[in-house]
């Protein structure tokens, strides 16, 4: 049967000034007005939020919906809209800054460092659990449902092929090609 190549290199969005493929499993770090991956695989500029705030949001996004086969750049792309939105929406900016601030305080108390410095997902998730009913967490989680999973660039990573009408549907492209069922 025809299967989808999940390793296919996908086109990247321009706001991420990419130098190559993203690397999964690294924590985004901040430098100047830039948020970037440690290896410089991708970087993005923030205008309204502190780079450290954005970096924390990206890590938080990954901890909420962890997919080991997705690079951080997909999570970064899901979060970038908050920087622009924070420029015109003071309440949102406040919500995000305070939310990250409280998350860092909780991390300090439990682990002696900010959220980004907590090395294990399990420990970061435990911190998120304590705020999951709050507006800050719910805003980030709710936004991710479309912000992450509605990125056409990542669909192939899940084996989903997206629009098909332009390709003539699947009538000649494997709608019934399953070949492993036992009679």
């Amino acid at each position, binding site marked *: *049967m025809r*299967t*989808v190549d999940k390793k296919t290199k996908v086109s990247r969005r321009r706001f991420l000034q990419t130098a190559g493929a993203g690397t999964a499993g690294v924590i985004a770090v901040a430098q100047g007005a830039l948020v970037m991956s440690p290896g410089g695989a991708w970087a993005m500029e923030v205008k309204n939020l502190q780079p450290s705030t954005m970096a924390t949001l990206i890590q938080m996004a990954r901890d*909420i*919906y*962890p*997919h080991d*086969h997705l690079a951080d750049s997909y999570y970064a792309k899901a979060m970038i809209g908050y920087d622009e939105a924070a420029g015109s929406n003071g309440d949102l900016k406040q919500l995000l800054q305070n939310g990250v601030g409280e998350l860092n305080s909780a991390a300090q108390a439990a682990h002696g460092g900010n959220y980004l410095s907590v090395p294990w997902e399990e420990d970061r*998730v435990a911190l998120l659990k304590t705020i*999951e009913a709050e507006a800050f967490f719910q805003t980030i*989680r709710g936004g991710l*449902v*479309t912000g*992450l*999973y*509605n990125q056409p660039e990542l*669909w192939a990573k*899940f*084996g*989903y*092929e*997206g*629009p*098909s*009408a*332009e390709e*003539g*549907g*699947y*009538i000649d*492209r*494997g*709608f*019934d*090609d*399953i070949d*492993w*069922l*036992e*009679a």
Partner: protein
Amino acid sequence: MAKTYDLNDDSVVVIIGSGAGGGTLGNELAQKGIDTVILEAGGRHEIDAFENDEWNMFSKISWLDPRSTSGNWRVAKDFAGLPAWIVKAVGGSTVHWAGASLRFQAHEFKVRSTYGEIAGANLLDWPIGLDDLAPYYAKAEDKMGVTRTNGIEGLPGNNNYKVMKAGADRLGYKQCHTGRMAINSAPRDDRGPCQQIGFCFQGCKSGAKWSTLYTEIPKGEETGKLEVRPNSQVLKIEHNAEGKVTGVLYADAEGNQHLQRARVVAVAGNSIESPRLLLNSASAMFPDGLANSSGQVGRNYMRHMTGSVYGIFDKPVNMYRGTTMAGIISDEARNDPSRGFVGGYEMETLSLGLPFMAAFLNPGAWGRSFTSALDAYDHMAGMWLVGEDMPQESNRITLHANEKDQYGLPIPVVTKSDHPMDAAMRKHGVAATAKCYEAAGATDVIELPPYPASHNMGTNRMSAKARDGVVNKWGQSHDIPNLFVSDGSQFTTSGGQNPTLTIVALALRQAEQIGRLLNERAI
């Protein structure tokens, strides 16, 4: 050559809504030479405007006006402002329906007689039976080109169906096939055959699936006896001192209000908006709303027992390829109270694209258990359960005490709680589906909670006696002779089948009756 009618023309039949009920009724009346105006709240998006994109189409065609929810159903928590997933556009929900076209079983018209009295359920027999509707079912199947009727071949089975069939065969189910679908398996009625695109819920790009948008409506318009006015939100039905309806007040796209006069008004705005309109049309003469002497307007809201189950396999399925719902097991559709509930349910294939799967998999959930399920997306096969739910008086559409919509009218509140029968049936259905997938080799099975309802029924129900319901066996108001209900809200009970075929059959039958009454000058 579509005609336009004057606002002051009081000889026209005005139909509110252009979906399975309204669109079909409009064409039937026009074919009889009856001047008809359809007022449709949504815009007109032809096939060219359809996109293979779940969220874009959701934004483009869904009914997203403010609504509120209450009751113990999980939808009230997960989707508090979106109790129903239905369409606001010319063609109504026939734009996004899946095409499953099943007749009710004989006993489903006679539930009070068959099931007896059930505590908490407001059961009532329909004032018509399968024999009354059979000729109209036959006509509807021919008109819609339903597969496995009229010598039309079934659709070919896709991967999702093949997994279902493998499990069904192992379990000994006998009634499993690719469904009775209003989707062309071969060219018919100037429409081509299914191209196995997927995206049935986003509007059929090939036009193989029947929708009033590109069948009934243009056919009606060609007669020169039908005008379809899109972007026309009806606000109120007006009546005279005799208690007969005389016209409808509506707002156009710019919000300007107009009064379209009418000889007859037929309400077909789906089971939330239809009762809401009758309630919002209250007057000094009808203080509880139009057609509501029984107090049943808005009550007995049904949305079917639903639930979905996905099997996860160690090899790819790619369920999203091809027709969304062309697969059914009907063995559990019988009434067999020994199972712990009355009525029955159909098991139907269903798939969602990755974006909707993420939204519906387990709303609100996060973390590894969620993402590990989603990581198996291309290894999933999916089924949806559709079963009869119990009518309950307290499940109802009411007007919100203080929240208003963009026209200043109270928004609807949709209250629904499961009856114990509904919960027992869901439990049985989920277990049966899980067994089916395990028989086919699933390594894991996940249950999705019910999502916003596409099947909405019963809020203006049909009854033999005026005190028990809102309309008579023709869908005509017990109280107001020139007011009709033409959508699924007239269902007395929900049956265990997808409702569209029954809505179309009722509209065909109602059109004949309206024609007779107009000829006799009875209305």
